[in-house]
């Protein structure tokens, strides 16, 4: 199918209806982020009702516009990426050339007209774009700025780039993660990103809350590394008490047995026996002969290797879902090691309407996850992510008061665009 460009179809405003009472209804966020951490933060803000205006360089698109495009031969592949849609739904999009004076002017004016400006560049990049905090704050003291560097803007690490795995390693979480007695292990997803996204969203909310009380915007720097350290703070404390945790694989320091075991259908089942009573029920279920030394957790810890073998022998005879069902019925904590493909028919997620069906011009009906902060019935409707530059005209006219002639001139001069400039993909 041939897709019309955004300017041909016109804008498709994605904001909440007037009168909504989601927490951030009426709050405008200027989103200068790309890839995952930043877009995840602003996705959460959009879920809470904010009007999020994403700014992309028309010659330097969000990289995720190129990831997860089902049909590589589709026209405008940059508007067809699953990754981009999942983390940029419900946003507006303006694409401009920030190297031009007119582009810089638009950026600054949008920042002044916003409640929050958020970026995940390396430190100092945003200043080079003309958006220094001092200048912005002097002209509108109600605006807040959130930056989300991998590390910090402090000397010694301000020029250090970092992706999710870099940040994980520098936070200490990699040191503690690993198979029993083996080397540290990288986490699976780029874990620093979603954590930073959550922290960035919380920081943005704090700025709004603080402004409700003081009338003033503030600047906040969310260090991705520092936030991850906060998630293992108890281990940092334990190390100072001389009790640094050891890498334990899937085991638990107290409960036993605990582990991940294979099933007949080549899945994995995670289970934890959390009490002696649960052990009795589990042993009966799994056909493990009762023994006095296994009656208490300490004894089961000592025999963990032996128990692992027995449990694996039992689980290997069952389908994964069936094993989980039996374990839960016996009061034993259990779950399939799920991946995203399982969520389409996961009974809990289906009941909670985890996935919304969203229309898309060329992808058809698309599934996107729904907001994870559920404010009773006041859920925000989920819309697809914006096309590149889809809201150029709408934003320039509605927010900055540009005329049609001015917008046309900007388009003619290549300041704004709704298709990649300079061969960007």
């Amino acid at each position, binding site marked *: 199918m041939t897709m019309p460009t955004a300017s041909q179809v016109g804008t498709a405003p994605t904001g909440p209806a007037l009168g909504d009472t989601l*927490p951030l209804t009426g709050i405008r966020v200027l989103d200068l982020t790309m890839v995952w951490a930043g877009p995840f933060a602003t996705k959460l803000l959009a879920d809470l009702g904010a009007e999020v205006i994403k700014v992309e360089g028309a010659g330097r698109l969000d990289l995720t516009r190129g990831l997860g495009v089902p049909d590589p031969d589709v026209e405008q592949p940059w508007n067809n990426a699953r990754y981009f849609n*999942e983390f940029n739904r419900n946003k507006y999009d303006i694409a401009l050339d920030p190297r031009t004076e007119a582009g810089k002017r638009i950026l600054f004016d949008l920042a002044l007209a916003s409640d929050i400006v958020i970026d995940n560049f390396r430190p100092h990049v945003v200043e080079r774009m003309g958006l220094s905090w001092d200048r912005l704050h002097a002209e509108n003291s109600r605006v807040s700025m959130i930056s989300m560097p991998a590390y910090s803007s402090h000397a010694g690490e301000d020029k250090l780039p970092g992706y999710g795995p870099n940040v994980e390693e520098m936070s200490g979480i990699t040191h503690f993660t690993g198979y029993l007695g083996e080397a540290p292990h990288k986490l699976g997803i780029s874990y620093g990103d979603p954590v930073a996204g*959550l922290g960035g969203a919380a*920081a943005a909310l704090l700025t709004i809350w603080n402004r*409700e009380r003081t009338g003033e915007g503030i600047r906040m720097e969310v260090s991705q590394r520092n936030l991850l350290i906060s998630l293992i703070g108890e281990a940092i404390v334990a190390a100072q008490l001389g009790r640094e945790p050891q890498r334990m694989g899937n085991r638990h320091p107290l409960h036993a047995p605990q582990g991940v075991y294979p099933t007949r259908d080549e899945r994995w089942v995670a289970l934890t026996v959390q009490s002696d009573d649960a052990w009795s029920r589990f042993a009966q279920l799994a056909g493990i002969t009762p023994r006095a030394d296994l009656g208490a957790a300490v004894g089961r810890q000592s025999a963990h290797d032996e128990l692992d073998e027995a449990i694996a022998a039992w689980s290997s005879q069952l389908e994964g879902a069936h094993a989980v069902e039996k374990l839960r019925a016996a009061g034993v904590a259990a779950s399939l090691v799920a*991946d995203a493909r399982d969520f389409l028919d996961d009974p809990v997620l289906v009941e909670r309407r985890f996935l919304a069906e969203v229309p898309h011009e060329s992808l058809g009906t698309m599934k996107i996850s729904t907001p994870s902060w559920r404010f009773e019935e006041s859920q925000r409707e989920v819309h697809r992510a914006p096309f590149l530059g889809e809201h150029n005209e709408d934003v320039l006219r509605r927010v900055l008061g540009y005329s049609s002639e001015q917008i046309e001139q900007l388009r003619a001069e290549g300041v704004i665009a709704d298709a990649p400039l300079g061969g960007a993909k």
Partner: protein
Amino acid sequence: VTESGFPLEGVTVVEFGSSKAVKLATHFLAGYGATVLIGDPADAEALDEAQRLYFDAAKGVVEGPLVESAEAADVVVTDRTVAARTEAGIGPESLAASGTIVVAVTPYGEAGVGADWPASELTQFASGGQMASLGDRGREPLQAYGNQGESQAALHVVGAVIAALIRRARFGIADSAVDISVQEVQASALELFGGVAFNGDTVPDAFMPRPNGSALHALWAMYECADGLVGVHVNTPNLVPFFTALGRPDLLEKAGDMEFLQSDELRELVSEWIRPMTKAQFMEIASEYGAPFSYVAEPVDLLDSEIVASTGLWREVTGPDGVAIKVPGPMSESPLRFDLARP
């Protein structure tokens, strides 16, 4: 900022639960000045010493009936199901009537088909989709250290509490009730894998569960150095600083050759280069060239780091025998006050 500097001064939070999702969230809220009261002292006893020092440093305990404290509070944060809260006298209806915000964080939702399923740190992590990506190919999936399912949920709780307070301030809605599921929190954060799999598309190999443990390929791997492990995580925009740092700018000629960039040949080259270096030397090079390198930090590295200290992360609490213990403090660096010391 406010006169005291605490953004949440004057906000009272009753904590009813012992999960990390609750405890870590209320640690942040207390640090930012909220009065956090532990609703059930037995919950505090469920923690070990390190957890108590970290999570409970700035909290008080409810005095008198829980119901009265909860109804008088601005916010109740809980990991109990609707049924359990109702049994304790603080069910949704009574707290809605008292105009109390309720943020519930449970493994599978506060009500519904999974509300009563038994769950643990491991099984919650397994249920959310992130564990499937962690571990070595051919081996069992691996959990991340530190109950990361609930850790992410804790950040959701912090956001939800502040959002509900904003909603009350801006729209006069005092009884917001937010239902957070640990499974769903993780399921909504699955990088490319989520959006692709939700729609039945083919998932690229690099994003399949457990693609290749700690070493995806030469430019996305951990390497042994003289005193530990370091990380090289290089994308296309980083190839110039990477090859320059490596001392092989000539290899930029192969910047478009993905087969070479992900080859064992390059991995061996990088490995030989890194092996004699210390972590500190490696990071000096990272800073000099602006390359996305890192090292596997241990607690002592973080606690002794002048740079980490300069960001204002640490706060001190009093440990055994009056010893000062460093704990992570604010979620971000800002003019907002974050303090765990209480009279």
